């Protein structure tokens, strides 16, 4: 089941979430997302596998704003990473490495490879 898998990979207790929405309120990327961070958690709790095809986990840039504001100390960035990992571990890359501009700062390139390739 999706919920068990996410809990195992992330190490987070998703039932701690009471849907207050502070994560979504503080997220700087919501304008680019198809599901709000709190909706992602709800979908996982419902074992709704459609969340695996959402854009949201890939838009999350791991800025941790949600995590520092969560009143229940749920580390949402870890949950987004778990969703990405479920895809990446099945050998599906999110970007084409050949198209990366090599003049960019190394940290940008390394980070992209780390987060978008399996």
């Amino acid at each position: 089941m999706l919920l068990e898998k996410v809990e195992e990979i992330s190490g987070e207790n998703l039932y701690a979430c009471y849907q207050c929405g502070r994560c979504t309120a503080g997220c700087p990327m919501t304008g680019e997302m198809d599901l709000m961070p709190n909706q992602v958690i709800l979908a996982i709790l419902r074992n709704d596998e459609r969340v695996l095809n959402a854009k949201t986990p890939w838009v999350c840039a791991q800025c941790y704003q949600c995590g520092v504001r969560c009143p229940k100390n749920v580390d949402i960035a870890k949950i987004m990473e778990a969703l990405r990992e479920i895809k990446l571990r099945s050998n599906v890359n999110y970007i084409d490495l050949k198209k990366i501009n090599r003049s960019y700062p190394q940290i940008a390139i390394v980070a992209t490879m780390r987060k978008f390739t399996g």
Partner: protein
Amino acid sequence: MKLPYYPGCTLKKNAKNFEKAAIVAAKHLGIELVELPRWNCCGAVSSLTSDDVMHHVAAIRNLVRVQQMNDDGILDNEYRLVVLCAMCFNVLKRSNILATSNANMLNTINSFMDTEPDYEGTVEVKHFLEILRDDVGFDAIKSKVINPLKGLKVSAYYGCTLLRPREVGIDDPEAPTIMERLIESLGAEPVDNPYKSLCCGSYHTVGSNKEVVARRAYRIIEGARRNGAEAIITSCPLCAFNLDNRQALTEKLYPGFKRMPILYFTQLMALAFGYESEASFDGNFVDPIPLLEEKGLIGMKVQK
């Protein structure tokens, strides 16, 4: 004070100005930054999965080098590792916390690095700003200023990795002041920005969605400008790239947008300490020289 120092990949390429300025500024304050021998890339971003040990090896291997420097007599009982790049700082500190709080994980990492000495958990990862605040002190910095940056209105941009997650951050994640205090001690005027810790879009700058970053850059820069800022300082080479180089794209997306210089905090320090050429302003995308000339801050007293 002799401190081991981890540069990270980007400071050797896109952010040479950050490092060059830091080394002279540190020297001016009596700190010798000694580059770690045989350092390697830290991984740039932390792995957040609970079952991933492999991606922490690179970070821990760098911490072993600090132990070795002490064993080899290069350092005298100095286990504080100084990092300039905010992203590297975050990764190194986070892996250190994980490995030292989880004996099982540390054991796995040590067994894997079987040709290296074991990591003993003795290293403390410090951002250079922490050393400035806690060991040098802002009053001492003020007394070392040769050319006070009078009349220059500067806004601090913290981004994510200096502040979050809480256990890694060097200041209050919601209301940080450490860089404002530095700006003040250099004689410039700190200006607040409501978006000073809003993510710039980080690695999204790579790939097809650069506009995401340009839009965030606009919000951050305009937030500073509304409060009167003339320049922004940062401690992250990726934030710097996104705020500085991406202004070319921001300009296209927002007609009427005016460019603003983005500096590393160490460049501001080098300038105030009288090391104008080492401040290496030629490495910045948006040229800060016209602003600094207008303020009478170029061609001041120079240190030999």
